[in-house]
């Protein structure tokens, strides 16, 4: 009981204080730009739990999901192929490094011209931005494979697909997960801003539209939606990572304990 109470206090203490301070500040000196928290909450439900959920929120999430899944799959597949071959690695490294360093949002104007402002372009830009952390981390993870494991595989005659499946991928998994962790926020950024150019739907479009029409509480509620979405993605990732890397965390705990 005491434990539960203290958990409750620690979890909700600061958020409650912060929201109270916000409320206090907006009550003492009302500001057009900063509506009180109660108003934002009411607007949040009014704005997003209606047709907007189907028109703006879900299509955005769908595009984000499709984009990052394609980026992860392509990133791991290409990463394994490139990582296993030293010459291929040397061939692709400078080019890949350039694309990793290129801030992905600058790709939006040319892709708008080449593909047009449709779903394919928005998904493509998410893939193009999110693939690099996964790809380069996979290459690095595969390259740094334990040499004893490599030789064991060779002497046991484990080749080709089964070597990738049972030795290379598990060995590189912690690094691949680190890449996936980096790719999710980038995908989210590109999801939002790809909807800010020449479009009429989507979360990014909606919050910009609210700002342009000075619908301030709606704008704040949109920021809240994006915040919740980011938080949701982080929670899903953590669950996913724990499952995939359960053996790895267990191993680490053992090593730390010894």
């Amino acid at each position, binding site marked *: 009981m005491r434990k539960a109470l203290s958990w409750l206090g620690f979890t909700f*203490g600061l958020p409650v204080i912060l929201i109270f301070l916000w409320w206090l500040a907006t009550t003492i000196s009302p500001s057009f730009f900063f509506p009180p928290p109660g108003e934002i909450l009411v607007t949040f439900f009014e704005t997003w739990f209606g047709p907007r959920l189907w028109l703006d929120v879900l299509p955005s999430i769908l595009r984000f999901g499709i984009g990052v899944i394609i980026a992860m799959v392509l990133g791991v597949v290409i990463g394994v192929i490139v990582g296993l071959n030293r010459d291929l690695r*040397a061939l692709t490294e400078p080019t890949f490094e350039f694309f990793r360093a290129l801030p992905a949002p600058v790709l939006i104007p040319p892709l708008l011209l080449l593909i047009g402002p449709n779903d394919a372009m928005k998904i493509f830009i998410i893939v193009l931005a999110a693939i690099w952390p996964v790809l380069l981390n996979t290459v690095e993870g595969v390259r740094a494979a334990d040499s004893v494991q490599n030789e064991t595989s060779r002497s046991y005659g484990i080749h080709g697909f089964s070597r990738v499946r049972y030795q290379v991928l598990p060995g590189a998994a912690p690094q691949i997960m680190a890449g996936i962790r980096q790719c999710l926020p980038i995908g989210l950024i590109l999801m939002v801003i790809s909807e800010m150019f020449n479009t009429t739907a989507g979360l990014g479009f909606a919050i910009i539209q609210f700002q342009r029409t000075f619908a301030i509480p709606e704008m704040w509620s949109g920021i809240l939606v994006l915040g919740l979405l980011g938080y949701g993605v982080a929670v899903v990732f953590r669950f996913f990572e724990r499952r995939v890397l359960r053996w790895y965390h267990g191993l680490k705990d053992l090593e730390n304990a010894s």
Partner: protein
Amino acid sequence: MTAPTGQTLTTTVAVARARSRRRSYRPRRAILGATGILIFLLLWEGASRFGLADPRYLPPPTEVIPRLFQVLAIGDFWVAVGQTIGAWALGLAIALILAVILGVVIGLSPFLRRFTNSTVEFLRPVPSVALIPLAVLLFGLRIEASLLLIVYAAFWQIFIQVLYGVADVDTVAMATGRSYGFSKWQRIRDIVFPTALPYLMTGLRLAAAVALILAITAQLIIGTPGLGAEILKAQNGGQYATMYALMLATGFLGILINMGARILERATLSWHQSVRGEATA
């Protein structure tokens, strides 16, 4: 680092052999890398020449690269580069100072760490681009609009790493410091700071890349002056070769920032095992 126990002559020989193999591979690696870039440029040229993509919208590199050199000679281009780097550097510096101070204060107190945990975990994944409308409302086209986005994005990257770093401090070292009569400030400077520095540098490297993305994004979407705004201007004016030339320039800026971050990391951590170990083994 001295040879760890259990290291035999065979491993020493194997390490030396691997190192010489790496060295003899170096020229081949450079040639292959250059070939890779060439192949990419040829594919681009081909896509544009043989109508895979609309050549109006995808001018070939033989047109874009000369344009890049023309752009480099224009004063306005360097003004835009300066504005981009200025916003990037200022935003990163503000984020760094805030993150280090808050990270050390919160990291050193178990109470504060627990107390702020839920808030940090909620605010951290909020995509900073969600703040674009707010930035426009509050600051319009001024540089503060870019700064709000850059600081928000860069802050969390560094802050989280500082928290990890402070949590990693050896309790025995801290207790030793206390029994030797170190003051609180001395303990922070001589025990906490060196332990947290590698983490801080990792955070700074990640934050530097994210800050550039946000600086360019702000310029593209809000229109704060800089390279992003120039790209949009070139696109609106139908000067597509210039647009691609400016994109190449932002890519090179990104590479410079990545390289700078890596050099800084090596220089500040030259004493640390992770860097020394790489150099010797």
